[in-house]
């Protein structure tokens, strides 16, 4: 697997599919140079003549990660759609696979707590019982319940253990027959079908029942569906330009790493000998990485020096007026979750839903900025580190980074001028690559599918998450998750956000007459089934 694609500062996230054919073109050999590649709209005849077997299923979800799981869960439970009417096309084998990988490498193993609310339960549409209640019953302790009673004023926000979240998802996956709906392989493209609906072309993983092709390659197959749902997540890691330049020019992927890739070698090295590490960023990954460094130093006595470089140093409460002021201190902006809490159903959600164009962009600007949660035990660690003199925060950005022997040397440009910083390692915690053009399927939707970009650069979707401009006859294409960020709902790339999106999609499909709409009575019944673990 290559580290850097031709596109530049982009490294694909790993999949567990070593058997897939390597280095494919945009469409598999059977489709290349054909009229299929060029055409926005395909007829059944075109697909037939290309020798691609067709499978009919009313609803297809592309992605197979958290977004697909939540959407399909909603369709099955609330929409009453049978499992035989849904297929999830995925290059991973479990919906939480990528999520678990990313949390693990960014210092969040299963026994730690994620940044998510107690009632945001993928795998439970109702958010009841909350994770706090479940943990209290499971562990026979009142502590989680006391915390959700007192949060956030008299206690930190309660957040669930990653392990509990994933276990709950696994239970629900079994209950809704997710494994029967899953088809593994690489999705090449989604195109509109003449007469309505869509074709989704998949190159199946070998051994998944795809047609045998030449030389052991599985040939592409096409799913013919009325609706398509796309939730493909992030296409890869994002690096700051100066850090990416260092990696490419020095061909060095050892000294400069990303918080979202496996960088265990850094912690191992720092345990063995004294060293300096630069940490770049100010969000949740930064906090988790710093916490690991601080804990390691305390546990193993390693003489680690931490230089925390922040582009913008947030010194105190910040905001345009008293009703719009966020907490800040020591360089960080503090916020319980990824967005202000009312983004998931309160004032902010209602306000942004009503806005358009420039007003909507302005609303995004008002809540922008990287934030991290305030956690008392994290604050204690940082306080100790500051007092001990082995943690310092610097404001600025790196003009460039070079290698001097085994040390990374950076020219840091800050408000007080330039200074040189030397370190053994640099950990870039600034995030994942959300550029929609970096993902094959999304780029194809922009080029052939009628999709447009929204003012924030991602895909333009309706309030129902229907992809604007991509309708096909009676069929609709829905996009949820990270790719839909910038629309009427800001919290798309979160657990609860995926459920909110899934609810909008399901309600839209119900409005169009293709599934049921869940009212109070059926909701209570379905909840009882969930509680009893009844397969549906």
């Amino acid at each position, binding site marked *: 697997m290559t580290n850097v694609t031709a596109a530049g500062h982009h490294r694909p996230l790993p999949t567990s599919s070593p058997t897939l054919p390597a280095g494919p073109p945009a469409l598999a050999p059977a489709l290349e140079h054909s009229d299929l590649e060029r055409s926005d709209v395909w007829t059944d005849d075109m697909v037939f003549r290309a020798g691609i077997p067709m499978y009919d299923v009313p609803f297809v979800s592309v992605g197979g990660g958290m977004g697909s799981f939540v959407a399909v869960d909603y369709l099955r439970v609330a929409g009453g759609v049978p499992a035989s009417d849904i297929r999830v096309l995925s290059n991973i084998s479990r919906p939480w696979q990528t999520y678990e990988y990313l949390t693990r490498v960014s210092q969040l193993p299963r026994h730690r707590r994620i940044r998510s609310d107690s009632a945001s339960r993928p795998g439970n549409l109702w*958010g009841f019982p909350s994770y706090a209640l479940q943990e209290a019953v499971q562990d026979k302790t009142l502590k989680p319940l006391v915390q959700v009673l007192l949060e956030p*004023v008299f206690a930190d926000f309660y957040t669930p253990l990653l392990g509990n979240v994933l276990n709950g998802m696994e239970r629900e996956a079994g209950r809704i027959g997710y494994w029967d709906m899953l088809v593994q392989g690489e999705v090449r493209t989604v195109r509109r079908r003449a007469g309505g609906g869509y074709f989704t072309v998949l190159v199946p993983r070998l051994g998944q029942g795809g047609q045998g092709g030449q030389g052991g390659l599985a040939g592409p197959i096409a799913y013919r569906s009325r609706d398509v749902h796309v939730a493909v997540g992030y296409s890869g890691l994002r690096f700051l330009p100066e850090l990416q330049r260092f990696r490419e020019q020095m061909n060095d992927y050892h000294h400069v790493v990303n918080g979202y890739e496996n960088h265990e070698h850094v912690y191992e090295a720092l345990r063995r000998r004294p060293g300096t590490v630069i940490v770049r960023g100010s969000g949740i990954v930064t906090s988790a990485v710093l916490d690991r460094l601080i804990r390691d130093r305390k546990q193993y006595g390693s003489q680690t020096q931490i230089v925390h470089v922040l582009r913008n140093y947030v010194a105190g409460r910040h905001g345009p007026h008293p009703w719009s002021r966020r907490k800040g201190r020591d360089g960080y902006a503090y916020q*319980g979750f990824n967005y*202000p809490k*009312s983004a998931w*159903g309160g*004032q902010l959600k*209602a306000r942004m839903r009503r806005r358009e164009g420039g007003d909507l962009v302005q609303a995004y600007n008002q809540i922008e900025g990287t934030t991290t949660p305030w956690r008392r035990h994290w604050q204690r660690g940082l306080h100790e580190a500051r007092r001990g003199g082995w943690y310092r925060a610097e404001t600025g950005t790196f003009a460039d980074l070079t290698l001097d022997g085994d040390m990374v040397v950076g020219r840091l440009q800050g408000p007080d001028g330039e200074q040189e910083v030397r370190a053994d390692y640099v950990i870039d915690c600034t995030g994942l690559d959300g550029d929609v053009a970096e993902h094959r399927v999304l780029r194809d939707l922009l080029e052939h599918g009628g999709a447009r970009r929204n003012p924030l650069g991602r895909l333009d979707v309706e309030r129902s998450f229907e992809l604007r401009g991509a309708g096909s006859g009676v069929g609709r294409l829905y996009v949820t998750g990270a790719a839909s960020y910038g629309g009427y709902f800001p919290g798309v790339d979160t657990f609860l956000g995926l459920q909110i999106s899934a*609810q909008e999609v399901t309600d839209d499909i119900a409005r169009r007459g293709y599934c049921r709409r869940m009212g109070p009575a059926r*909701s209570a019944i379905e909840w009882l089934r969930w509680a009893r673990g009844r397969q549906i």
Partner: protein
Amino acid sequence: MVPTVFGRIQTRLFLLAIVGGALTALITPILPAGGPMAQRYQTTFIVLAAVAVIGVAWEVIYHFIMQWRWEKDWPTVFGLLTLVPEGLVVWALATRRLLPGLPGPVTTAVFVIHFLAVWMLVWMVGNGPMRVPFIRWRFRGGRLW
């Protein structure tokens, strides 16, 4: 809770009517009050109605206070603490017989038991099983319709 102003009001009225009404109907006979049953029921339901109607004004005040919070959330514990000012106001009005339609005097003991019972149950239902029948409610700021 992340309420909008209309959501708060709708949720309060709904919960007080359904949950509060049901509980009131159940416990009125066992409250330490004297007098004919019809009178007792009239008393407790008038008090319930007062909590609801005056509560609409309180919700507007809470909405205003909430604006100072960045998250625009109404912490769970606030939903408990507000029983104090709300209870005091209704208690003062009830015991001084200032509520329209009260058939007789209201003792503090009766008021406290009734008010606390309804408040606690409404608070628990609103923070828990309310999400089960109403799956869109929490995403709409507490609006039920």
